[in-house]
């Protein structure tokens, strides 16, 4: 019952309820509980007991289903082969299985045998030496026989009636022959002969190997003797019968066998077949490759990555070397393959097979290793690679910085840290605060200002990042990385310093420009007014028309104005058709539908655009949204969306009025970027402002000289304008001025409310100027 059937299932039941420790069995759990939690609540103990009972029940239940679960697991196994589970391949590494060596036993038996054999052979060799030590050809047979007999005692003839090898009876015809090496007797048929050359070969070898007990003077003589023997053998071939063994030694088969074996052994020892020599070379080459190839691959990989750790020349030298070795391997294996192929008795099929196999394995080797050798870049490529790597690194750095920027931006948006921002940004965000929808363009400077601040702050951030990177790299002990990072940091700091100085310069210049602007603005305003008066007096044009006409002019005069060209465009487009249609005061669909709608459209349309635009400027009418949205899109759409022809001017007027700082800021950016138009630009806003301001005030001015807001809501000012325009231009001018003054008063109020004191100042000055102009006009008119 308590047997652990499945650890997985049982485990569920035996968790300690207090510490959730996994205990294998009930008893373990109990003892664990006793030890660890004995001081704790008694209830828990009761709990644990019931838990154990539950677990037991659960186990029993599980047991019944277990087989089924197992089967399921089995089928799962089908699908997920080799993923998880205990695959036999994953069993723990196993050592070599049992082995048993019989070598010592084997050697013992062999040694006994070999000793006997070696003694035997050596005996024969020594005797052979003795037999060949004298000059056989010049010695008499009898003497030879005597010497031969002295080497080994001959077996008595009488003792051997039959040939021991073939069993034939010896007789007069079948004579006995003695083995000169062991003295035994055999018949002629069973007799073997050892030729002198063979004898010399065997003895000389033994002399060489056993040079200790043979005098060196003996070997030359024996060589000499062998030569002699071979010469004389021709003459004495027929002398077999007279039994004189000039050039050979009689022996039995056993002795001959032993000697032959000996000879064979000697041959093999000396002889190494060609294939072995070639093969040894082949193996040497392969070893070399095994050494060099990894080194090369390391180099090539590094070089191909554009690193400069290794020199290209060195690598290519190594590559050449390795390749030469491969060629050598190829050549050698080919040579082995064709070895002895054209010999007359064709080599044994096994030899050919061996050669084929060697070649095959060499080919495999080359295929596997050589083709793994990657190529090196050429010098140009390498340069390129180096550059690429540099760029890559650069890009990585930039990416990092951008990422930092991004995070920084997000951070800033979240924080909206007003104090730290430049004045423009402050303005925008402030405005955004109380009336977020009023000034859509407020965003432009804001973003510009933000960009400015981002440019500096992210830099700082990046510097912080890099310093922390350096710390980490130092901690990790990666000195090369530390070096690059430090360089990086230095660059960043330089850049930051530069930026800071630029910023300071910019700030001072901006102040100067502001003053300039104001001055110029006023001057322009004055000029415009004068011009307008002349114009109106001369050609009786409607105010609106003249406005448009003049609108387009200043832009044409100043083509270098970069930042607002799209606005100019919008005005250009909108204004050029207007003169015609507005002069006739009938909307001509062909010329320009949109402007005509705005300017001479029914009252329903008018209030929809203009009054709202006016009211929006004053920020007291709630319905501002449509205007702002259009504002946003109209400059962006570059005049394509021209309906609020009057609006861009009015917007820009407002902008110019209240925030020409942000406006300037954009220009500043360009200035920073090295825009040559900086100087002309600085004067730009003022004409812009002027022309925008004035015309705008005029159309909205006449109908409601005192209170523009009510008027704007109920009547269509333009038609009235057109009608009344011809009769009383001067008063309208006057009223326009008055209107403008009112507007500016409103602005000032607004600015004061928002706490933008600098703007208030500017506006006040503007207002003063306007009042002066009005006074002058009044004075001029009357």
């Amino acid at each position, binding site marked *: 019952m308590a*047997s652990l*059937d499945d650890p997985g299932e049982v485990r569920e039941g035996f968790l300690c309820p207090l510490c959730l420790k996994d205990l294998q069995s009930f008893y373990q759990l109990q003892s664990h509980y006793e030890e660890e939690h004995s001081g704790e609540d008694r209830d828990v103990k009761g709990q644990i007991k019931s838990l154990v009972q539950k677990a037991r029940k659960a186990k029993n239940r599980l047991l*019944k*289903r*277990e*087989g*089924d679960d*197992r*089967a399921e*697991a*089995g*089928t799962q*196994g*089908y*699908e997920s*082969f*080799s993923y998880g*589970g*205990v*695959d*036999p*391949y994953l*069993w723990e590494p*196993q050592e*070599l*299985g*049992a*082995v*048993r*060596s*019989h*070598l010592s*036993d*084997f*050697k*013992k*038996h*062999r040694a006994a*045998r*070999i000793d006997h054999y070696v003694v035997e052979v050596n005996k024969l060799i020594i005797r052979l030496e003795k037999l060949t030590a004298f000059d056989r050809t010049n010695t008499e047979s009898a003497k030879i026989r005597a010497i031969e007999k002295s080497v080994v005692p001959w077996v008595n003839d009488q003792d051997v009636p039959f040939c021991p090898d073939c069993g034939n009876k010896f007789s007069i015809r079948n004579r006995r022959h003695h083995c000169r090496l062991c003295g035994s007797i055999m018949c002629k048929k069973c007799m073997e002969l050892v030729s002198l050359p063979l004898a010399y070969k065997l003895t000389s070898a033994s002399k060489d190997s056993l040079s200790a007990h043979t005098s060196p003077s003996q070997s030359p003589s024996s060589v000499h003797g062998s030569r002699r023997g071979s010469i004389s053998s021709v003459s004495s071939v027929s002398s077999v019968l007279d039994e004189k063994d000039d050039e050979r030694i009689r022996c039995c088969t056993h002795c001959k066998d032993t000697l032959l*074996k000996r000879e064979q*052994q000697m041959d*093999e020892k000396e002889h*190494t077949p060609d*294939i*072995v020599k070639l*093969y040894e070379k082949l*193996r040497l080459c392969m070893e070399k490759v095994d050494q060099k190839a990894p080194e090369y691959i390391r180099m090539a990989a590094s070089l191909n990555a554009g690193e400069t750790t290794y020199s290209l020349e060195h690598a290519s030298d190594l590559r050449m070397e390795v390749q030469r070795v491969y060629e050598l391997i190829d050549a050698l294996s080919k040579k082995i393959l064709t070895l002895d192929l054209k010999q007359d008795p064709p080599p044994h*099929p*096994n*030899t050919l*097979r*061996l050669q084929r*196999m060697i070649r*095959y*394995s060499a080919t*495999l080797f080359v*295929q596997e290793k050589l*083709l793994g050798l990657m*190529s090196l870049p050429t010098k140009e490529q390498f340069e390129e690679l180096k550059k690429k790597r540099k760029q890559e690194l650069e890009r990585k750095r930039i990416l990092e910085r951008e990422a930092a920027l991004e995070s920084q931006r997000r951070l800033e948006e979240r924080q909206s840290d007003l104090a730290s921002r430049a004045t423009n940004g402050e303005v925008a965000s402030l405005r955004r605060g109380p009336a977020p929808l009023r000034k859509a363009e407020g965003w432009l400077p804001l973003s510009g200002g933000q960009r400015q601040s981002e440019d500096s702050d992210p830099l700082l951030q990046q510097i912080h990042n890099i310093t922390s990177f350096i710390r980490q790299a130092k901690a990790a002990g990666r000195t090369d990385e530390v070096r690059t990072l430090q360089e990086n940091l230095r660059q960043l700091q330089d850049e930051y310093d530069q930026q800071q100085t630029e910023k300071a310069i910019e700030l001072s210049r901006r102040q100067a420009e502001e003053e300039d602007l104001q001055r110029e603005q006023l001057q322009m305003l004055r000029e415009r007014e004068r011009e307008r008066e002349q114009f109106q007096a001369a050609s009786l044009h409607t105010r609106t028309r003249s406005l448009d006409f003049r609108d387009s002019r200043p832009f044409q005069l100043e083509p270098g104005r970069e930042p607002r060209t799209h606005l100019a465009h919008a005005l250009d487009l909108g204004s050029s058709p207007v003169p015609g249609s507005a002069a006739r005061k009938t909307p001509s669909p062909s010329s320009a539908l949109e402007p005509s709608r705005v300017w001479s459209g029914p009252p329903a349309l008018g209030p929809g655009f203009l009054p709202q635009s006016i009211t929006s400027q004053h920020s007291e009418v709630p319905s501002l949204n449509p205007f702002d949205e259009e504002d946003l899109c109209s400059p962006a759409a570059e005049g394509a969306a021209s309906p609020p022809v009057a609006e861009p001017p009015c917007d820009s007027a407002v902008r110019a009025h209240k925030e020409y700082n942000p406006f300037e800021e954009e220009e500043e950016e360009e200035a920073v970027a090295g825009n040559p138009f900086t100087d002309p630009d600085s004067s730009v806003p003022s004409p812009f402002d002027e022309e925008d301001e004035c015309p705008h005030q005029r159309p909205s001015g006449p109908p409601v000289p005192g209170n523009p807001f009510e008027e704007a809501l109920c009547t269509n000012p333009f038609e009235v304008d057109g009608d009344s325009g011809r009769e009383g231009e001067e008063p309208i001018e006057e009223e326009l001025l008055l209107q403008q003054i009112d507007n500016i008063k409103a602005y000032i109020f607004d600015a004061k409310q928002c706490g933008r004191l600098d703007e208030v100042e500017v506006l006040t000055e503007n207002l003063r100027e306007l009042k002066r102009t009005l006074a002058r006009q009044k004075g001029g008119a009357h």
Partner: protein
Amino acid sequence: MNVVFAVKQYISKMIEDSGPGMKVLLMDKETTGIVSMVYTQSEILQKEVYLFERIDSQNREIMKHLKAICFLRPMKENVDYLIQELRRPKYSIYFIYFSNVISKSDVKSLAEADEQEVVAEVQEFYGDYIAVNPHLFSLNILGCCQGRNWDPAQLSRTTQGLTALLLSLKKCPMIRYQLSSEAAKRLAECVKQVITKEYELFEFRRTEVPPLLLILDRCDDAITPLLNQWTYQAMVHELLGINNNRIDLSRVPGISKDLREVVLSAENDEFYANNMYLNFAEIGSNIKNLMEDFQKKKPKEQQKLESIADMKAFVENYPQFKKMSGTVSKHVTVVGELSRLVSERNLLEVSEVEQELACQNDHSSALQNIKRLLQNPKVTEFDAARLVMLYALHYERHSSNSLPGLMLDLRNKGVSEKYRKLVSAVVEYGGKRVRGSDLFSPKDAVAITKQFLKGLKGVENVYTQHQPFLHETLDHLIKGKLKENLYPYLGPSTLRDRPQDIIVFIIGGATYEEALTVYNLNRTTPGVRTVLGGTTVHNTKSFLEEVLASGLHSRSKESSQVTSRSASRR
């Protein structure tokens, strides 16, 4: 416990110990098979072994520049060959390894033959079995028994194989055997004897829980080898036959010359290794993926090999490409042939009825289905006969057993006498009388619940619902619930803990379905490692040969009844 690795390690060690230089591997018939299962030619070429020779080959040339590694079974004839070889050595130096225990006298006679001192090593390396999968080994013995008893020669070979396995895995096990089988008991005793005799060899580091050797007899489950298989390895063996990882495809219509014989080895064929246990449908989709992979890698000669760089890229990819193309064409051919056979022989339908016969107890429906299939002309006589065999085994003692009618149907279908005789032979071989445990109606409450639940849930795959009887046996063994009255221990000591290392050996042959079961058991029961072995690895065909070789049919009562009955009807 990885048998493939164990043998491979032995071979590697031999080659390493011989040092550098050109080598020849001298083997006998059996060791050639043993080596070829774990090493490919190219793999072994890298180790400077260039020639493979049979010790009994007379046509060997003297090549004194080669070193000889001899891996031989310690049989008399091999020793004799070796003695001849040493008297007139053909190679410069000899490293001799016997795959099993060799007698001292053999060592002595070898030593005395080595007059030229060419032998540098004499060792026993116990790689004396065919390692099929990491957890599956075979001895390639077909027909191990005569009647119910061992063929003495095969008993000794099996003992050798089993002891070699234990030695190669360094396990000195406790032995349990199937009581109902005399052969199992005999083998258990023989193994025990060897362990006792060679006690020095079996002295390994003691593990906490001693390993367990369980010896079973095929008779206990004659159903499993009669079923059609649907997992890749088992299916290939069933339909095409695997012989030492080789598959003969020469009978496949329109086969190309180089695919007449293919090698399926998990050791160097990744696709096979990943798919050998997957079922046929999954293989199909995997083959498709393999093809797509191949097509992606296959260079389009016309358009792509224009520049030298392209050529170079092609050449650089060539070895892999070549290897892959070999793999692709091989598996496509094999799977194609399998599916051809499946549809030709109507195997899906046949297999469904087989599974019903093996796993369910609905006699009338089974009978009806068999009769229906026997009328089907697409069903081969072989499949028809095995359906009847399954029926005969399952409903042997059923009250309304209609085996005679089915036999008549077989005759009418034109099934040859050989197969009809085999029906009764199979029953004689693995019928109820000889079975120690009940194959079909589980007595165990757990098993009943299991079957009940299975019935409720319905079967997920009708073709693979059968679980070999071995599964239950091993399951019980692992849980420590295997009954001692059915599977007693040899000797007095018993295992008190649950076993961790299990070696199961099936006299009369294992099957790949059982190998899969063991594989899944290994995967799902951590801490338990099981190795399966058999005198051979059967498919239905070889199993029927085994039955035939046991010679049981001739003494069968039932068969004489059937034949007399059919004769009388004539």
